[in-house]
């Protein structure tokens, strides 16, 4: 009897492995969990896109719930999410800050002029070093930051209407209710 049970052990192990592999099929390996979740935004001080003599500091992200969106004018998926960001801005539920990643000032200003600027303030990260400090590895990426300036959520990839309603908006609303 015992021996018979033993013979099934390889099958059971095989099925356990299958269960893990099956789960793996529906995971996206491109989405790397951020080590910054529940940690304060790493300090940065960037020249503002619109006023190169002024600075955009990480301390400005405190006191209100905000989104920090890393984008670039050369990034196609940023153009895809742009209308959604414009929509979020018009709802006035959360302030969107931008971090322009490795871009040319002229091009990005022209693009924002043409299609609208959803951002409260934009930091111009010409070298991409601030983005590296934030653990950014592609554009677009979006951080949800609470009133204390703590990163609570990170979304990798373009925000669609669906993503906003099902993932980001509930998070923003939850954080807005907290003190």
């Amino acid at each position, binding site marked *: 009897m015992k021996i018979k049970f033993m013979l099934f052990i390889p099958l059971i192990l095989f099925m356990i492995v299958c269960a893990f592999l099956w789960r793996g099929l529906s995971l996206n390996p491109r989405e790397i969990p*951020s080590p910054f979740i529940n940690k304060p935004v790493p300090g940065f001080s960037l020249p503002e896109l619109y006023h190169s003599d002024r600075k955009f500091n990480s301390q400005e992200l405190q006191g209100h719930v905000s989104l920090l969106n890393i984008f670039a004018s050369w990034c196609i998926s940023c153009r895809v999410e742009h209308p959604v960001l414009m929509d979020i801005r018009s709802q006035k539920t959360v302030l969107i800050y931008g971090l322009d990643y490795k871009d040319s000032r002229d091009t990005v200003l022209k693009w924002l002029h043409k299609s609208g600027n959803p951002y409260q303030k934009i930091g111009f990260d010409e070298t*991409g*070093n601030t983005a*590296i400090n934030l*653990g950014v*590895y592609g554009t677009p990426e979006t951080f949800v930051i609470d009133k204390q300036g703590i990163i609570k959520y990170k979304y990798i990839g373009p925000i669609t209407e669906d993503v906003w309603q099902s993932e980001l908006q509930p998070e923003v609303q939850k954080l807005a209710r907290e003190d």
Partner: protein
Amino acid sequence: MITIAAPHPPFGHPLPQGERGKEVIGSAKNLFTTPADKHTLEVYPLSAGKKQLKKLSFFPSPLAGEGARRAGEGYCHIFIIFLFLLFSPTLFAAPAHNIYNFKTVKQQNQFDELTQNLRCLVCQNQTLAESNAPLAQDLRAQIFQMIQNQKSNQDIKNYLIQRYGNFVSYTPPFNPSTYLLWGLPGLLLLIGIFIIRRLSS
């Protein structure tokens, strides 16, 4: 008894005159097939010996003279493979450290070791040393800077892990979430030993 014609070599090179159309006859038990040619079933009598088999499976070079072709001696495909290797892009690939000026060989070795043991986040199947993604270039530049500032390997690894998580490192840390990962091989070995001992006793 089976009668099978001598095989035609792949890619349309004609067989040497002497071999063409030659029928190989033998009974099933002293025949064997070679996997060398998947286009035709090659069947030779065992008595043909290794030498003759080699001649047949190496098709003659078009560059070789009639005599050589007749003898079936040609290493055309080896020559072609050699040509492919000679012009393969990897031959022209330069190591990543080439664009940096290191003060010492030790620093260069440190750079190589680090970049070859850290994962690129954009091209996830490449190391930081191999990847040409802009982010990998930036990270290499940062690693170079940190090496110039006398940072240790562990400092530099920590710098990247802090920003990108354990994903950048090819060696996962030993913590509660990875106990299973590290322990499983040993655990499976123990289970295996246990099962074998139970079954054999």
